[in-house]
């Protein structure tokens, strides 16, 4: 089999087009790419190629020494052997995606830390065998790390985060979704050391309390995106501190933060003028008053684009009236807000014609009679 470089280049970013080829070629395709491209290949995405195995990737690593970005998302067959080969032959690796490769363990991270000092971005989501030792080694060996994505690492603990914070001070993008074992200690260490954080996802880390938010607000003033869905211990105090210093926040996800009230919304409205996306799903204490704060704030008229209010039982049509001035609003979710009526949505739509309102209302079929009656007023016919 032989592929033109143009084909390879075209397929690099999408990955999905490889899927069939890699499945039928049983990994030989990857070896062939390696042989043909040699040192010229810089980026390769094998996302979803489940039949690619270690042998193919070892050969590939030997041939393509200059690879910089490698995406092995969902390649479930690969093991630590692949990462060992990568560390031995590919010192220029910058970005590596090992999402859902469930056989990867700490050994891989150790190997990468030895051989790939230039690593800037790593994704080890759902590799559940990874624990403290691996992350420790990674932090020691790859000080240039900017992005760390570790969703669902159940055995990741605070000491691992502390060492990550100590050695990788350039971290900008951190995702710890569903790392249920971490607590305030780890987040405080991250906040104190990595002041450049722009993106932070702590969703489903249920042990975190307001202390985390307060320390984050003291150090990480560049924070743009904060996702804390299901952190049900956070209260208004934490968000008050956050809104006082983090003025560039653009996206906030507060789904299932059950304790927050209208006070949080008033703080966010006054402190975060660039807010674009706000999710308040299942925040059952939010009322129309909170939405009023949001409606009159600086962010609302120009920036606010997406607002999710589903399952907030106290929200009524008055909220929608408060939002009439949000000219940039593109999408609003109102599922299960039972006090919302059709009339309220109609009024909102008449003021903001481009808005998409998501609610559980039966779509209405317009009467065919209307169309006919309109035709009667056709001006030209009247003139003739």
């Amino acid at each position: 089999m032989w592929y033109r470089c143009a084909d390879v280049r075209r397929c690099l970013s999408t990955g999905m087009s490889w899927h069939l080829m890699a499945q039928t070629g049983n990994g030989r395709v990857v070896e062939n790419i390696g042989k043909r491209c040699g040192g010229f290949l810089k980026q390769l995405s094998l996302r979803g190629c489940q039949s690619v195995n270690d042998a193919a990737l070892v050969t590939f690593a030997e041939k393509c020494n200059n690879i910089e970005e490698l995406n092995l998302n969902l390649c479930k067959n690969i093991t630590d052997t692949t990462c060992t080969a990568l560390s031995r032959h590919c010192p220029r690796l910058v970005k590596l995606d090992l999402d859902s490769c469930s056989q990867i363990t700490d050994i891989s991270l150790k190997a990468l830390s030895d051989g790939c000092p230039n690593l800037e971005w790593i994704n080890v989501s759902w590799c559940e065998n990874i624990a403290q030792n691996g992350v420790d080694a990674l932090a020691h060996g790859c000080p240039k790390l900017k992005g760390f994505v570790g969703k669902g690492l159940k055995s990741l603990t605070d000491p691992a985060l502390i060492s990550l914070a100590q050695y990788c001070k350039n971290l900008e993008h951190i995702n710890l979704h569903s790392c249920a074992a971490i607590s305030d200690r780890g987040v405080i260490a991250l906040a104190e050391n990595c002041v450049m954080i722009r993106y932070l996802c702590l969703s489903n880390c249920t042990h975190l309390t307001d202390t985390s938010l307060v320390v984050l607000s003291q150090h990480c003033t560049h924070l743009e995106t904060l996702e804390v869905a299901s952190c049900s211990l956070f209260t208004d105090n934490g968000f008050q501190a956050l809104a006082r210093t983090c003025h560039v926040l653009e996206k906030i996800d507060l789904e299932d933060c059950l304790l927050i009230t209208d006070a949080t919304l008033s703080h966010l409205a006054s402190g975060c003028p660039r807010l674009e996306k706000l999710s308040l799903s299942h925040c059952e204490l939010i009322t129309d008053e909170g939405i009023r704060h949001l409606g009159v704030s600086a962010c609302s008229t120009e920036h606010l684009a997406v607002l999710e209010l589903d399952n907030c039982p106290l929200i009524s049509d008055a909220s929608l009236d408060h939002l009439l001035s949000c000219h940039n609003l593109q999408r609003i979710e109102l599922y299960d807000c039972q006090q919302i009526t059709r009339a309220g949505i109609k009024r909102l739509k008449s003021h903001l014609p481009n808005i998409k309102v998501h609610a559980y209302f039966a779509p209405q079929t317009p009467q065919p009679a209307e169309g006919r009656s309109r035709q009667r007023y056709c001006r030209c016919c009247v003139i003739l």
Partner: protein
Amino acid sequence: MRKGKIRKFNRFHYTNEVACVKRNRQRRKTSKLERTRYRNHNKPADFFLGFSHTSGFPLLLCDSFIYITGKVSTLTTMEDVTCERIMKKIEAVLSQDTLLDEFDIVFSLGEVNRSPVVHVEHKLGLESWCVKHVYAYAYAKIMGSKQTKRREDPAQVLRWTQFCLLIAPEVTTFWNLRKVLLGQGDLSANLELHFTRLILSRKPKCMEVFQHRKWMFKNVIAKVIPQQANGPNGIDPEHHNGNGVVFHSEQIERFLFAELDLCTWAANKHQNNYHSWNHRLWVIQQFATYVGLVDVCRAEYEESHKWISVHVSEHSGLHYLQYLLDSIVSLVNESKVENVSEIVPYVNSVTKLYQRELDFNRDLIEEYEDHEALFCHRRFLLTRLRDLLCSSPQRTCSPPPPALKRSPG
């Protein structure tokens, strides 16, 4: 373009559902009436109406047909996001609540901003206003993915087919898609068994559901059983001595009794549920030898009598009893049991067994008048008794003939 697409859909369904009927009647000369019926079946409206023979909302499906063809452009549709959200909710309920035992469509106009998925006390309801919209969306998605032959995410295909089957379990296309996914291991067999049971709660007379369960036992579960039967128990299937007691597997037993319960449940839910009894027969034929034919016959005989005494006009149940009687007689003839009394207490011979049945039948006829099924059953009993007495009057006292070697299953 649109028209062409629709014609393709029709051809697809035509091949799926009508062709098998046609094949059966291939040699018979089709009458003019039948030919027109085929032609009508080919029309889209009929094919949609064909789905809903037990529940009462053919109108809704007609509407969704209008949406799919796109002929009526003024019909506003629900957003894709909302459709997906409703389907996800149903999927979540199905996977989380293992005790879920009933599904149905609840009438509602959709005037309140409330989730149409109602989950109360292990019952699942779906408000009627959303059915046609979500069904139309899911149907279009499934057919679209089939036409373009693109490889869709298995989780999504499962979600779409799950919804469509809850609404219209008669469509084999959806079942076939799920069979492919079951074969690939994207779907667990236990979840699927639970799901089919839920569909039966709404349409207990749906043949395709029983067909799917049958297919699952043959292709998915049958592959699991032999390993587990041989592995942990360490019993070689060759030691199986004909009674089926030695080759004992708990799992088969559990499957068998769960399946028999399901059949009783479905038979109670809908009158004249032929498919349920048919499935019961199949289950007995397939699995009873593993558990012990004698035990199963004893339990079933008793169960069947109870059922018949409260369902006097259902021929399916009586036919099942006839099958049981025949298999008891053959057990005696093959000397797998020494006496009938091992299965039916206080009955010593086959003749007595028939006499007892005739008495039972007479009591029912006297108590409930004018039920044809009872008289048909009586005719069967008398025929068998006549055959027995005429062919070999001395059989009851002579020693039984040598046992026939019959392999289990």
